[in-house]
Structure formats: C-alpha cells, structure tokens
C-alpha cells in the first residue's frame, strides 16, 4: 500500500505540474485590427487614408463636423447666421449666443472641439506618413504621401485661421510637448510644404478624386493664404494670389455651373463643374451635414417633402440680408425664405378651397380672446381679427384662428433678453430669414436629419473673386485664355451666372465684400472675409461691435493648455 500511495502521489503531482504548464498569457486577436495585422494589403492602405476624410467631415471622437461645429465658428460669429434661444431651448449653455456676441471663452464647446478636430487630423496625417513611408515601394506611394500631407496642410490652414498661433507638428509619435509657434511661421510651414508637394499631387478631376486632395485644391488653398497674407503675416502676397488663381484658371478643367442652386443641392457631387474641393456628405453613409436641420423649415416641411419638421433654430441677420441682397435680377436672392409661405403649384391640396391656386401653409393659433398681451403690440390688428393671413375660425368651445406661416425679417427678443431669447410660439418660431441655399433634402435621414448636400470648401467662383480682390488690392490683372481678367470681368463672370445686374467700372475693393456675401453666404468664409476687411469688430444683430481685435483669433482651449504646458494662450484671453 505504501508503494501504491507513492505512485499515486507521483501521478497526482505530475498531473498538477502538467496543468501548471500553461503560463502563457498571449491571446489571439480575432475580430480587431491592431498594429500586428493592419495595414498590410493595398486595400488596407486605401482604407487607412480614409480617417483623414471622415475626420474632416465628421470626427466622432472629437464630436466635430465641418458642416456643424467648424461652420458655427466661422458663421455664427458673423452677421451671416444666428441661433437665438427659444424660451430656453437652443440656449445650450449660451454657446451660440457667445459666438454671436463675441464673448466666447477658452472653454467654449466649439473652441474646444474644433481644436481637437484639427490636431487629431494633423496627428492622423503624420502617423499615416509613417505608415506609407514604411510600405513597400510602389508607383502610388509618392502620390499617397503627397495627398496625406496636403490634407495635413489643409487642417493646418483651418487651425491657423481659427487659432492663429499653434504648434507645428510634422512627426509621429509626438515626442514631448509641442510648443506654440507664431502664426507667420505656421504660414511659412504650410506654404513651403504645399509648394513642395505640387509635383506629386494628382491633376485628375473626376469622380475618382472628388472630395480628395488634388493639385488644384493646393492651388486654391495657397491662393486663399496669399490673399490673407497681409493679415496672417503682415506681408502682402497679392501677386502670388493671382498666380495661384491662374494656375487653376489656365490648367484646371473647371467651369461655373449654369444653375447656382445645383452647386449646393442634395444631388451635388462630382457632377458639379466648379467644385475644386468639397466635403462630401451622405444622409446615411457620411453623416454630418446638418445645415438644413438647423435651417428652420419647421412649418414648411411639407413644402420640401421632408420626412419631418426641421428645427426652428437658425436664421440670418436682417441687416446682412438687406445690405447685401440688393442687385436687380439676382437669383441668389431666392435662396432665402422670407414672408408668407404657400404650397408649390404641384402640391395643390384642398385646391377647391382656394380657387386662386395660391394655397397658404397654415398653422392654428391659440384662441384670440385670450391672446397674450405681449403679442398685441406686434400684431396690432390681430385683436380686431382683420390681420392678413388669418383665414377662418371654428366655433365653440374656443374660437380658433389659422394663420398663414409668415417668416418675418427681424428678430425681436420677447423672451429673456439676456439669453437672446425670441420666445417659442409660432410667431417667434417664424422670426428671422431662413436659408434654403443648401436645398432641403427629402431623402435626408429621418432619424438624424443628416442630408446629402456636399459642402464646398473651394470652388471656382471663389478663385475668381479672390483674384479680383487681389488685383484690386494691388496685383496686376492677367490674361487667361485670351481674356484680360480685370476685377470687373471676373465679377461679371460670377454675376452673369445668377442673372444679377452686371458690375461697372465703379466696382472697387469695397464692392468685393458684398459680392462675396451674396455669392458665399453660409459657405463658411464670412469670418475670414470680415477680418480681412477689418470689419469683424462691427455691430450686427445683438452684437454691439467694438470688440477687441484680439478676438480675431480664438483662444487656445483651456483643456489643451492644462494638458500641454508648452502651449501659450493667445493675447487677450
């Protein structure tokens, strides 16, 4: 028995030791991509470039979209767009109000998220340069690296325009804490890099390069930088701006589309002949275009066959509209939604009631007898029941009036003025001029309200008007394809497309800003234009103006200052 026991002990001990043999903790990676298995194939490399573009359109980790947060930084801080509060709604901690009143802080949600958006894009480009550098040699390697770097330069431009002085990072991983550099050096870095990339960038302009960085995107970006160089660096570069414009005008396969609206329509895309670089959006596949979601077609959504009412939030400043949209015949005027609203001719429901064929879009009102006093001053003849637009009444228990939806130009603060609050009844919701330039998309995503309209960044009309401005500011006019392109000639290319009264010899540098307001309204350039013309400190809407010129650049977010000790806050913050 003793022997048996020993044998058993040995066997058990052996079993124990055997089971202890498994000491390795490495586990297989089955469903994820990690540096161990990605990128390896050419399709991997194609997919690896994608995050740059998705990040530009919609950086989900930073919560930033070109057409929403970046757009707000460039537009809500100007007279082109405003989001007032509606009985507390759309105040959202004052973020839109602060942009309108120029009272943003280093903690402003868009100031923070756009910084993350830009530098995340820059870091991603830098890390991709490493990935491509390490890839086996091929014909596509050089152009791929050039494309990634050109996109990095575009992100750099956005960051330089928003924040002025920023760190220059061109390697990955980033060693240590990058330090703030003066704006002029950032300008020089972008310029030098872009110029060096020109030989490697693609000149193909078709569906295959739509929404991707090409040589013409680089030219347009350089033109924009040179036009603003006096402001960015203190050194004017107008002749260089003209030369960049000519690089596009002479060699680029671009032409203005006959229909201005088609450039921004839900169906826009590679078919548009004048788009040099756009951020492509898709209601389902590439979400992030919400210009119309905030554009305010709440009561008129059936007019545009939208699946649901849009938000009532965003409109334009009445002064901006009336100062700029003044040219006879200008079809660009028709992209604003103003005044009483009627169904289109092909939507004639209840036609028998309206033999005239003009069918108003109606909204029922609260009983007139107990109409809040605050409205009687505004709609004075309402109490008498004779206001135009009131259509009929029902009987007991309360009389009801139906009102023809009517967008009024001005915003009147009938809510809390300190919150820039216009109130939230149907009249308040119909205050303000709305835009349908990015035409409401009946195929928008009915849950998220993301639309299919691509949002142009650079287009031919901008190249033309930038060239005109550069010439008016001191550069010489040049001849392109046999035509001497004076500022009047250039302006009239743009004006004749929309049927507007043509410019005459009185067209001066002061004519440029209103011309750009008409042509590029809600395209994200207004802040840049106002600063270049020295008018960013002007008064509009509820913004009393006379702010500090320091506000021409946004502050470095306080979160970033705390995470990177080498960042320097911009002056005045």
């Amino acid at each position, binding site marked *: 028995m003793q022997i048996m026991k020993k044998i058993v002990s040995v066997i058990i001990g052996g079993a124990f030791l055997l089971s202890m043999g498994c000491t390795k903790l490495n586990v297989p990676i089955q469903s*994820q991509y990690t540096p161990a298995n990605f990128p390896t194939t050419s399709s991997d490399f194609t997919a690896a470039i994608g995050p740059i573009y998705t990040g530009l359109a919609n950086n989900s980790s930073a919560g930033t979209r070109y057409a929403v947060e970046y757009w707000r930084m460039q537009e809500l801080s100007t007279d082109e767009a405003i989001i007032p509060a509606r009985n507390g709604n759309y105040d959202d901690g004052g973020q839109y109000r602060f942009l309108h009143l120029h009272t943003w802080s280093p903690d402003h949600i868009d100031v923070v998220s756009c910084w993350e958006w830009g530098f995340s894009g820059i870091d991603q480009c830098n890390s991709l340069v490493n990935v491509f550098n390490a890839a086996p040699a091929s014909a596509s390697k050089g152009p791929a690296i050039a494309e990634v770097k050109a996109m990095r330069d575009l992100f750099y431009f956005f960051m330089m325009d928003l924040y002025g002085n920023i760190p220059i990072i061109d390697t990955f991983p980033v060693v240590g804490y990058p330090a703030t550099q003066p704006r002029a050096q950032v300008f020089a870095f972008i310029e030098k890099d872009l110029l060096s990339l020109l030989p490697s960038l693609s000149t193909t302009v078709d569906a295959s390069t739509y929404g991707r960085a090409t040589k013409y995107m680089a030219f347009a970006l350089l033109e924009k930088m040179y036009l603003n160089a006096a402001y960015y660096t203190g050194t004017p570069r107008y002749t260089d701006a003209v030369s960049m414009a000519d690089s596009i005008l002479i060699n680029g396969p671009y032409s203005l589309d006959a229909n201005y609206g088609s450039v921004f329509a839900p169906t826009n895309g590679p078919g548009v002949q004048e788009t040099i670089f756009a951020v492509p959006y898709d209601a389902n596949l590439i979400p992030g275009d919400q210009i119309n979601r905030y554009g305010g077609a709440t009561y008129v959504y059936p007019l545009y066959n939208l699946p649901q009412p849009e938000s009532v939030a965003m409109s334009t400043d009445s002064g901006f509209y009336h100062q700029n949209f003044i040219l006879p015949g200008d079809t660009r005027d028709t992209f604003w939604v103003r005044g009483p609203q009627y169904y289109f001719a092909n939507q004639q429901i209840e036609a028998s009631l309206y033999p005239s064929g003009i069918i108003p879009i109606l909204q029922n009102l609260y009983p007139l007898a107990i109409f809040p006093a605050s409205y009687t001053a505004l709609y004075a003849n309402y109490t008498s029941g004779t206001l135009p637009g009131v259509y009929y009444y029902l009987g007991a228990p309360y009389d009801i009036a139906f009102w023809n939806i009517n967008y009024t130009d001005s915003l009147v603060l009938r809510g809390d003025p300190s919150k820039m609050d216009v109130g939230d009844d149907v009249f308040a919701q119909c205050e303000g001029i709305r835009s349908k330039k990015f035409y409401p998309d009946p195929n928008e995503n009915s849950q998220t309200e993301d639309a299919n309209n691509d949002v142009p960044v650079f287009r031919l009309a901008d190249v033309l008007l930038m060239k005109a401005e550069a010439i008016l500011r001191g550069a010489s006019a040049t001849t392109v394809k046999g035509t001497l392109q004076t500022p009047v000639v250039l302006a009239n290319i743009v004006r004749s497309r929309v049927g507007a009264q043509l410019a005459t010899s009185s067209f001066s540098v002061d004519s440029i800003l209103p011309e750009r307001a008409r042509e590029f309204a809600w395209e994200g350039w207004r802040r840049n234009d106002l600063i270049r013309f020295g008018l960013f400190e002007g008064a509009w809407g509820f913004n009393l103006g006379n702010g500090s010129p320091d506000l021409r650049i946004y502050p470095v977010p306080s979160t970033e200052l705390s995470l990177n000790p080498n960042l320097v806050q911009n002056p005045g913050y």
Partner: protein
Amino acid sequence: MKAILRLLLLALFFLPVAVFSQSRTIKGFVTDSAGAPLEGVSVTVKGTHKSVVTNAEGRFTISTGSPGAILEFSYVGYISREVPASNGTAVTVTLTSRGGQMNDVVVTGYGQSAKKNITGSIASISSEDFNAGVISTPGELLQGKVAGINVTKSGDPNEQPVVILRGASTFRSGSAQQPLYVIDGVPDASIDLVAPSDIATIDVLKDASATAIYGARAANGVIMITTRKPKTGQTRLAYNAYVSAEQVSKRLSMFTGNQLRQYLINNGSPLVPGNSSGDYDDSLANTNWQNQVQQTGISQNHNIYFGGNTGNTIYGASINYFDNVGVMKGSSLQRTSIRANVEHRMFNDHLRLGLTVLNANSTSDQIPSQVFENMLIFMPTLNVKEAGSAYSTEYPYGPLNPVSLIANNTDQSKMKTFLANALAEVKIQPGLKYTLSLTDQTTDTTTEIYEDSQSELARGLNGVANSSTTSNTKELIESFFNYDHNFGLHNIKLLGGYSWEQDVLGRGFGVTTQNFSNDQVGPNNLAFSNPPAGTIVLANSNIGTLKLISYYARVNYIFNDKYLFQASLRDDGSSAFGANNHWGLFPAVSGGWRLSKESFLQSATWLDDLKLRVGYGVTGNSLGFDPLIAQQQYGITGRFLSNGEAINAIGVTQNANPDLKWESTATTNIGTDFSLWKGLLSGSVDYYIKTTSNLIWSYPVSSTQYPYPDLTTNIGKISNKGVELTLIATPVKTRNFTWRSTLTAAHNTNKILSLSNSQFNEQSINTAFLGGQGQSDNWSQILQVGHPIGTFDIWHYAGKNQAGVTQIEAADGADTLTPTTADFRIEGNAQPMLLLGWNNTFTYKQFDLNVFFRAVTGNKILNATLAGLNNPSSAHFQNLPTFSESESFNDFNSYLISDRYLESGTYLRLDNATLGYTVPIHSPSVNRMRFYTSVNNAFILTKYKGIDPEITQGGLTPGIDNSNFYPKTRSYLLGVNVIF
C-alpha cells in the same frame, strides 16, 4: 487536459478498495434543550458513512453495522454529541444550542472552515434567512441581511440588482463594481444559472484577508454561493412554489386632463380642442397614462427537487420554472433552470468524483426606456387612440404616446446558459488532498428588436429590425492541494494551487435593417426588408479572449484553539492588461485571538465565545474589462469617398497603454466575533479601511500628442472607511414560542483622495450630464478630491422673484435669472450614512412570522424627474405634476436643476412580512408541509417625492432619478413548501 484525465483514471485504478457490510438497527429521538423535537439532525455511525437524519418529529432509525458503535449527532447551530449505541434501546438525545454560529461551517475560497477559526470578515446567510418575494437573482436574497452590502433594485424583472460592498472603489460601472460570484467553487460563474430556491447558503467574503485568495478579481468582495445538497442518509423530494401579484408601489401625482385644462385656462392660455391629428393637443379626454401602461403582474415560481445521500453517493436534481411578469406592460422574464449533480466516493473514501450540470433558459421582454418619461408627460387631454384606430400623437418633437411605445416596439432576448463542472478529489495521505476541478460554461444570447411601421422611434422607416447573437464561453481549470494536520496543540492547514481560465467573449453577429412591407415577420426574417443603400448596419463584433493564469497559496495556523493565523498569496496574470503589467501579486495576512479560551475568561460563564480579528491584504479589480483594452486598436471611423464609392475608413480608435494595470485595493480590517449567554446574543463588529489606488479612467490627452483624444490609464486614489455591526439575538425561547432577531448596521465613508498620477494632474472631473431644456451643457455631479463619488455640483435655489421666476444664487452671492456653470456649488452627495436591516422571526407552535425592516439614511437624491416635469410654460405639450399647481406660469426657470430638487433619500421600509403555517402531518410519505403568505414592500416611510427612494447607488453617478426609473413594486405572495 486529456493527458491529465488519463493519469487520473490510472490513479483510480490502483487505489485500495475496502467495503464492509453488516447490520444492526437502532431507533432514537432528538430534542433541543427546551424539549422540542429537532428535525434534520444528522446521525452518523462513527467511522463510517452510514448516516440518517431525524424527521419532523425528531425521530430516526439507523443500522449500525457492528456492536459497540458510537453515534454522532450533529446539527447546525448545536453542539455535536457522541452517544454509544446500546442495542435494542431507543436512544434519546438532547442537543444544546451552541450559541451564535461559531461552529457553523463557512465556505472560503478553495476550502471551508469553522466560523470560530475564521480570521477574515465573512458573513454567512442560510436559506431560512433569505429575503422572500419574487426574486430572480442571488443578490436580492441578501438585501439588508449582510452588513456592508448595499443592494439597490428597481421593479424591473430584467434588471440585475446593483450590489456594492463596502462603498464604491472604482470609477467604472457595471460588472466592474460588482462582487465576484463563486458558485459551488466555480469563480465568476453566471449568476443566472442558479435558481434562488436551490441555494442553501451564501457566504460573503468582505475583507482582503478573506478575498485575496481570488486576487485580481476580489476587490469588490466575493460572494460564495452554495447550493443545497442532501445530508447523509437523507433522500428527499421537495416542492416549493409561490404565486404572487405585483403592483406599482406608487404613482407620481400628475394633473388629470381636467386639471391641466383648468390650470391653463386659469393662466390665460387654454388648449385648443381638436381631435384629428398631432397638431392638436386636446381631445377632451382624461387619460391617466401611468394607469394605461401599468398592470398587476402575476408571477409564479415552481421548484421541484429530489436527491439523496447514501454516504458514498450523493445525487440531486432540480427543475425551476420562474415567470415574472412586470408591472409595466410588455416587460417580463421567464426562466427555466435545471440543475443536476452527482458525487461518488470510492476506494475507501480516497477518491471523490463529482459532476454538476447547470442549465438556464430565459426569455426577457423589455420595453423602451422612453416609456418611463412619457407616461408622465404625455398629454392627459388625449385619448389612447383617436378616431378608433391610430394611437394619438402629439406634435412632432413632442412627447411620445407611451401606450404606442409599448405596442409598437418589441425587444426580446433569449439567453441560454450552460455550465458543467467535473471534480475529482483524491486523498493522497492523511490530511493531504488534491482537487482538480474542470468547468465549461457557455452563454448564448439572441436579441431581437423591432420598431414597427407605426413606431414613433422609427418614423417613416416602415419597420426597423435588429437581430443579434452573442456567444460567450468560459473554460476553467482549478488544481490545488489542501493539507490539514494536527499535532499537539497545533493545527496547520496549507493550500497551494493553480488556476487557468480562458474566456472568449462577444462571438456573434448582428444586423439592423429596415423597410418591411408589413409588420408580421420583423426580425424573424430580415430578408423581407428593403433597406435603402447604406442603412443596413452590421454589428461591429468585438471578440475578446481573456486569459487568466494564477498561482495561489494559503497557510492557516492555529495554536491551542486560541491563536489563529492566516497568510495567503495569489500571483495573477491577465491578458487584458498592458504588456508591462501582465502579472500582479496579491498578499494578505490576518490573525485572530480567541479571548474566551484564555484562562482569565474561563470564569465568565456568560461568555460563550469572543474573538478578535485583524487582517490586511491587497486585492485587485480587473472585472469588466475589454481584453484588448491596453492595445492600440484600429476601428471603422466612418466612410469616405474612394473612387467615388463610400467605403470604410479604418483609423486609430484606441491609444495603446502598455503600462495599464489593475486597480489595487488595500484593506485593513479589525473585527470581533462574540457569543453571549449560550447564544442568546451573538454578533460581530468590523472596522475597515479600504484604499484603492491606480483607478482606471479614460483620461483626456493632449490632441497635440495623440490622434485619439483619450487614453485609458491608471490615476488616482479613493478610500472607503466604515463600521459594520451584526447582532443576532434570541430574546424569547420557550417550547412553543421563539423570537429571533437580527440587526445589521453599516456605515461607510467614501472619499476621493487623488485624481492624478505622474503624467496627469486633475482636481476634479465633471460627471452626470442630465440634459434637460436649455441645460445640455450642464453636469450635475463632480468627482473631486476630498469628496465622495456621487457628490452633487449644482445650482443653489434662491427662491422666486416678485414675478414668480425661479432665481439661482450666483457665485458672487447675488441672485440671478441666468445662472452659468460658474455658479455651481457642492450640495451634498448620494452616499448613505447608515444602512440598517432588522429581521425578526417569531415561531409559535406551527406558526412562523417573519418581519423584516430595512432603512437607509443620510443620502441625497437628485429628483431630476420632478425638475423636468415642473415646467409650467411647456404645459401645452407636456403634462405637469400636481407639484406645479402653485408654480407661476411665468416661471421660465422652474425646471432648472438646482438643490431645490435635491431631496433626502432617507427611508424606512417594511421590506417583507411573511406568515407561515406548518401543517402537523403524521404521514410516512410527507415529511413536512408549510404554507405561507408574504407581502413585500408593505409600506415605506420617506419624505422623498419621487416614486421610490431606492434609486441605484451604483455606477459613477449614483442617486439620480431622471425619468428612467422602472417603478418599485409591492407584491403579495402565496407559497407552499412540501418535503416528502
């Protein structure tokens, strides 16, 4: 593995065999000291496995085998006795209660021990003390019964209770905050597997000296579940069943349709009557939406169990059917559990083989969470359906019809969990035992969600269907030696072992598609959908293999039954952690001194037992971890145009952190166990200091350094300090009447000590974004150094101005109508001061009555539900609570979340009252029959204005009631236990 099994079989073959057989019969009768018969006393012939138990009348019959045999009588809670069996004479034995639970056996990790020899803080609850009621998970059995465990649960049949032991010690939520469950020795087994009626005892390992043997998963405590097994000599068939009726315990008081109409007329802004479509909000109805979506839920549970113990063979099987119908229409849980185990001793007790199989199939029906908000705010002036067929709607973007939400959205999950455990225990030589335990567990879940063509959650999409499956598997090998040896006054116990575990989580697929031509098939046949381009969503599978390898050892030493010492060490390796920190060491030491054994206390006859315990140990928290958490990962970041096609963009979605490691909790525990006056009063007191460092947090990193904005890293420290008291008293004990009373009390102080590490430095982190009108950038809680988790950082209500508008006190002390986040201030926290449980059992002859009270004091609840409801100016499209009756119609700030809505969470609840009657049966076939009736949540005393103050205490943002609370219930229950 195969090699090991082969070796084992070989070993068995060579083991010695010895079986004897002879027969003599002895009868007897066992009573307690008061003369009452004792049922269930184990009677064993010493030195053999022959054993029987006494019946309800305390009688037994046993065959002894040989003359001169000695009978051992043992019974939980009583002093064991040995009596010589004189042939032919009826043996009458009186057992005396040993007082307290000192000799009860306590299940510790990889072994068990007498309670008197325990040096750690362990609480044991046996089935007779479990909470009664409609109970689906083991955690609920313990609510209020174990000092230091904070259990919160709503009335949702599908919601797991939140169980927090000795205060939150992590910033992560979900399973990261839950204790480790060990079911019959299998760590981290699914708690869905065990039907509560099958559980015999639950031991809660609270301090590190008790839990450190489970290393990196033990920081939140360990709950050891032991299922019932027949005692030696017993064969039994038992049937337990109950049926219950459940109702909501409280409804919020909202305006009726008439009240709302009148309120609006009084304020000069009446509703527009009309009843055609969503543009009108008044069809002259008076609908109580809470009534419409709630019901009396009839639930039932049936459990049949049979088993036997012949001494050498133990077998048992049970079937449990549980059907819990929720009080919210459309929510329910059905579960069928099967359990079978067989155990056999061979070769003269040298080998014990066991096999246990557990299986549970459940079906869960859930309702959309929006129902809870909309049953309050949807206009009472509308009918459920308008014009006969269509559900009434409000103007788009308004509240959603709660009845329609339930009717037009379905969410059903079917889960199948299977566990098999094989066990072999070999006695190598006296005192030395080797155990090999192999476990395999599979959990398959299928979820089908359908938002039909009328659903307001998927307007205009003609039905959205989601179908997904997930399969998780767990393989586990536990292999360990136990050595137990007495020499002289010394007792030594050694444990050494190895554990290997591999979990594969998240295997499966999921598809979401839309646009069906009718609602008949939905998720059952996705092929009928016509999804527009880009609307099919394929689930992003995340298969993770988590491998855990551990070595552990423990030494117990007892000198003279007086001085106790224990030390343990576990070396844990986990594949989830950074390459630089795969392995971690978790040590613990503890000591105990049984003062009552000292000579100077021998004269104190009133003192049965007194023990002091001190322990220190370190445990880790690696629960709830994505196995790839530490690695750089690429994921789909969206789509982009490539050659004109929108294809997947693949980019970095997680920064690598090779230094990531587990949260580490160091616990010091000082405690005492005592028993006085022959067990009339016993109990324990514990004081602990628990400090957790290396808290895991997703920290924002500089976007100028990293492409992804946060990094999962170890930062900061948090401490929990507290006192726990358990008292068990038997104030009255006569032959016919007994009153037993148990009181548990626990106090814990939670405090964040640091939010920094060498790389990151932070003083506070804002949490709890609740949204709400105009407040979408506001948070409501803060993690701040020096304050506990769940600290409220909100506005201070400064009364109303002359116009009746709510004012907030600004940071500069002035009153303002337009507060900003700079005006937030710290206003108390959600941590309770004291948790109390008081259980009383009265038995009088055949009757038994149990009354259980539970109280929580000192915590704050943010009633964000009420804040959101109190919005008079929105009364045209959302209903108001009667609370708003006196609010000014002009108060455009009334809904702002401020300390006006921060309420005391103190409550006292009569949690359960059960009256039972045991039918006196003198039948050879029926052993025992008991009927009982029970009421749960009979009443509650509280000032809290919401539905119930039992708001979850778990997660990073505890104590917030924000329109997402499944109402608590009150249930009436009728049950029967029969043992044959």
